[in-house]
């Protein structure tokens, strides 16, 4: 427990770890594999590694790092589409910084920028709208990506653009939703996850009710968690307590930020602007029905896919990469033949190595305590 003393409340952290150890000891009998608890959110993955939480856990409990890093699940074909739009003379392509280095099949947005494309890193979609107003002779395209956490920001920006009559602004919408994704994961025959640490800020927007099917239909516990080490340990303990009691419920450890009903104003904007796509492709996971959204018909004028022709070509991930197996928890990052050799944070092959929230980048940077990979 060498890191515990650094936590906000070291005594509480020690109590939680002791409790987790005690439950683990009681559950150990007759168990031939560890309890696999998936944290869905990339921010949680990052925090787990930074605080060395894996090293505090008994052997019978392990974190599995789920697909909740939006940059990491972006397929190569969509990056190629971004590059194609960005390379048009009339376009200013605005994006969050996180997306700049994600590899496409030929280049990343950063490489396209180096070759002369007008790619601008912005902090907010509102900044892209400001760019459009300041450059009336250009087409400003914002690259919208992320789960429900960032979806309200782009929806509200589109609504603002419509209200203000800004005609040279559009959104290249690559938003994805968490619920169909979790359902697809749970429906896999060999999905060996025993419980979930639910995402904090996605839940701040959608609330806790949409997770109910995980308990009702799949009999798995889910606890929505905050980002402090104490939050994560407490949430893990709550999941394990449910497992021990043979229960499956949705609980909310992060109630100080996550209301049961989510954020009504954010949800209203999201539902006003977006509708589900029939299917959306994920890097490493293939296509998942209903997991992506696009702009509804009344906002089609702001849809970059309608304004510009995009190649929309599916590009297979590099054959040797094991991103999909890592994303679903079927393989640890160090089991990939490219990990740390062909694929590093400086020269990523797969997107899990790009973002600090990706499982591979986290293992590379902090070292998997059990894989000893770094």
């Amino acid at each position: 427990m060498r890191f515990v003393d650094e936590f906000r409340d070291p005594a509480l952290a020690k109590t939680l770890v002791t409790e987790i150890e005690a439950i683990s000891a009681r559950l150990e009998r007759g168990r031939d594999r560890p309890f696999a608890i998936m944290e869905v959110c990339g921010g949680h993955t990052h925090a787990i590694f930074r605080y060395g939480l894996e090293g505090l856990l008994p052997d019978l409990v392990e974190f599995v790092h789920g697909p909740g890093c939006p940059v990491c699940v972006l397929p190569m074909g969509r990056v190629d589409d971004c590059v194609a739009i960005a390379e048009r003379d009339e376009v200013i392509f605005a994006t969050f910084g996180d997306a700049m280095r994600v590899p496409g099949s030929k280049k990343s947005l950063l490489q396209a920028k180096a070759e002369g494309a007008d790619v601008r890193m912005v902090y907010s979609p509102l900044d892209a709208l400001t760019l459009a107003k300041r450059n009336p002779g250009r087409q400003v395209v914002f690259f919208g990506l992320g789960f429900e956490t960032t979806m309200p920001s782009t929806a509200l920006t589109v609504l603002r653009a419509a209200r203000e009559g800004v005609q040279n602004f559009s959104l290249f919408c690559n938003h994805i939703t968490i619920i169909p994704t979790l359902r697809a994961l749970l429906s896999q025959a060999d999905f060996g996850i025993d419980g979930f640490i639910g995402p904090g800020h996605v839940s701040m927007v959608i609330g806790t009710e949409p997770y109910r099917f995980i308990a009702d239909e799949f009999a798995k516990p889910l606890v929505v968690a905050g980002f402090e080490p104490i939050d994560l340990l407490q949430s893990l303990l709550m999941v394990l307590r449910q497992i021990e009691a043979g229960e499956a419920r949705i609980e909310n450890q992060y109630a100080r930020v996550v209301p049961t009903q989510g954020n009504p104003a954010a949800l209203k904007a999201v539902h006003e602007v977006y509708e589900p796509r029939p299917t959306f492709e994920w890097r490493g996971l293939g296509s998942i029905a209903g997991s992506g959204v696009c702009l509804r018909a009344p906002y089609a004028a702001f849809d970059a896919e309608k304004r510009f022709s995009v190649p929309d070509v599916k590009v297979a991930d590099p054959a040797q990469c094991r991103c999909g197996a890592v994303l679903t928890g079927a393989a640890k990052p160090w089991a990939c033949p490219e990990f740390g050799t062909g694929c590093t944070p400086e020269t990523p092959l797969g997107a899990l190595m790009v973002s600090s929230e990706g499982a591979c980048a986290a293992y590379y940077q902090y070292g998997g305590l059990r894989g000893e990979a770094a």
Partner: protein
Amino acid sequence: MCLGIPGRIVAVADEEAMLCVVDVSGVRRTVDVVCVATPDAPLDTLVGRWVLVHVGFAMSVIDEDEAAATLKVLTEIGEAAAEMEALASGSLDPLATPAA
């Protein structure tokens, strides 16, 4: 991008456009407050409140202790610096200058 950062609302920038000025560790910028505003209440009721800011949008009202704890976590996991840098330099907001 997904973790956001706590800031304190210090002024109303544009009542009709639902914009307020937020101070995030000394960096100020305007943020959209649609998601935290009480319907039909004037925005100045938000001044002084702490909010969690995600990519230019206030998404949740939090208390001061929560804000301090969140900033500490973000600093420790190395996300605060990146978020502050994006907020200050990636922004075109004329108000995004260090507070005096």
